[in-house]
């Protein structure tokens, strides 16, 4: 076929591309095309829109300059069927062609959209989206099953959030196909397996990153929806970006706008929990301390009013017990919980007000036998040798004529 090349002047790539450009742009300079929008995105910050127009067999790239966007009478979205008016342009550096859209109207919903709406209606009528079937999402999950692709950002993002927020969980990855052939079966199998593999999962997270309507289609399939509905374990659905809604989202017990958001919605935040524990510790202490000092006040009042009528040993008994508790409180805290040091200091300061020394200084004494404090009369029998502790020392004494 190259025999006569000397007669034919060979064209450069630029020459043939230029020829194609001229031919196409001249003849196809005002065309009407019907198709379904796919992969629609608005570039930032230019505001130009890019998408693909497609039907069953073919597809063509389209662009819509930002200044034309405000004239659209509808919100262009994946799956919408549109009539586009525009012209073909050839971009020479890439040898590609596309439609430069001048205007565009919606002419009904596309096939995907139609299938979506149909299934949604059907399952809704059957009650699959009803609130009464929604299972509660656990507050402090332990075993988390995640159904997603083994590779890619989703699992990594989830891990990252879990490590930061709440690394107490045990995460089980069910590697699945999340788009294309075999993905529906793969997802369904993973859901069934999570329910039957003998691990008592608290939650299943089904996740997939963003993509076109076709990429996400697996999660609009009836089989997946039914498997999610049948799951005895609560399911969180986190498919695509914020704007993407799938049938799976509607059936699931909770929809998360993105996979990372799923991790954030599911897992409590440990720094928040630690903060809460700090408050608990403080409030527990305050309550105990307040109660002890109010008991002391009560005793003091009784003492003032009835000091000469009431047997003193009853009062002493209470005083000593109170003081013992105070000491125990301090000791326990000190021994076991070093990191409460600050609170402890504070407490010690407060508790010093009710130490035995002060009580003794006020003229009370307490009785012990072999180092053990005697708080009840019945603990003593005649002839017991006891020690009486005063503020400035102790004396030995014998119990005499105790007739009970």
């Amino acid at each position, binding site marked *: 076929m190259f025999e006569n090349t000397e007669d034919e002047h060979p064209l450069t790539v630029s020459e043939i591309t230029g020829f194609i450009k001229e031919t196409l742009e001249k003849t196809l300079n005002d065309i009407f095309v019907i198709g379904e929008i796919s992969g629609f995105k608005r570039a930032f910050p230019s505001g130009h829109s890019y998408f693909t127009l497609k039907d069953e067999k073919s597809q063509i790239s389209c662009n819509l300059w930002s200044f034309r966007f405000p004239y659209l009478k509808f919100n262009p979205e994946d799956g919408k069927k549109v009539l586009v008016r525009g012209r073909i342009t050839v971009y020479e550096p890439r040898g590609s062609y596309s439609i430069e859209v001048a205007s565009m109207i919606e002419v009904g919903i596309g096939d995907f959209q139609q299938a979506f709406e149909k299934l949604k209606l059907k399952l809704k009528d059957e009650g699959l989206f009803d609130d009464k079937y929604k*299972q*509660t999402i*656990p*507050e*402090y999950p*332990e075993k988390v*099953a995640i159904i997603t692709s*083994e590779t890619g950002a989703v699992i990594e993002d989830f*891990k990252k959030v*879990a*490590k930061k927020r*709440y*690394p*107490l*969980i*045990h*995460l*089980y*990855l*069910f*590697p*699945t196909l999340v788009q294309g052939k075999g993905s529906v079966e*793969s997802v369904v*199998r*993973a859901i069934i*397996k999570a329910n039957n*593999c003998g691990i*008592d999962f*608290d939650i299943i997270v089904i996740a997939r990153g963003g993509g076109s309507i076709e990429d996400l289609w697996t999660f609009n399939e009836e089989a997946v929806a039914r498997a999610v509905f049948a799951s005895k374990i609560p399911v969180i659905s986190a498919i695509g970006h914020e704007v993407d809604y799938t049938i799976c989202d509607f059936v699931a017990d909770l929809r998360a706008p993105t996979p990372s958001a799923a991790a954030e919605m599911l897992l409590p935040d*440990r720094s928040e*929990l*630690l903060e809460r*524990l700090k408050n*608990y*510790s403080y*409030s*527990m*202490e305050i*309550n*105990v301390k307040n*109660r*002890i000092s109010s*008991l002391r006040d009560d005793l003091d009042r009784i003492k003032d009013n009835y000091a000469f009528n009431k047997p003193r040993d009853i009062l002493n008994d209470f005083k000593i*017990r*109170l003081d013992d*508790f105070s000491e*125990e*409180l301090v000791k*326990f*805290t000190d021994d*076991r*919980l070093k*990191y*409460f040091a600050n609170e402890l200091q504070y407490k010690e300061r407060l508790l010093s007000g009710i130490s035995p020394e002060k009580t003794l200084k006020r003229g009370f004494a307490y009785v012990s036998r072999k180092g053990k404090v005697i708080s009840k009369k019945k603990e003593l029998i005649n002839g017991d040798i006891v020690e009486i502790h005063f503020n400035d020392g102790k004396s030995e004494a014998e119990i005499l004529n105790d007739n009970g």
Partner: protein
Amino acid sequence: MSKEKTNKDSFEFYYRKLEKILEELEQNIENKSLDDIILNYQEGLKLLKICRDKLSEAELKIEKINMEK
């Protein structure tokens, strides 16, 4: 339909117990004997420590399920 089982060694188990004690010490302290108060307080401190340790020392565990089996 939350499941009642709470693992006996989970954060949640100890945390719920702590909340209960806190509630006791907040709302019911006037009806308690000193012995009970001190017992509650000690138990509370113990639970606080367990909860803190669990939060601070946890490391994410990850396992891959074999889908072939």
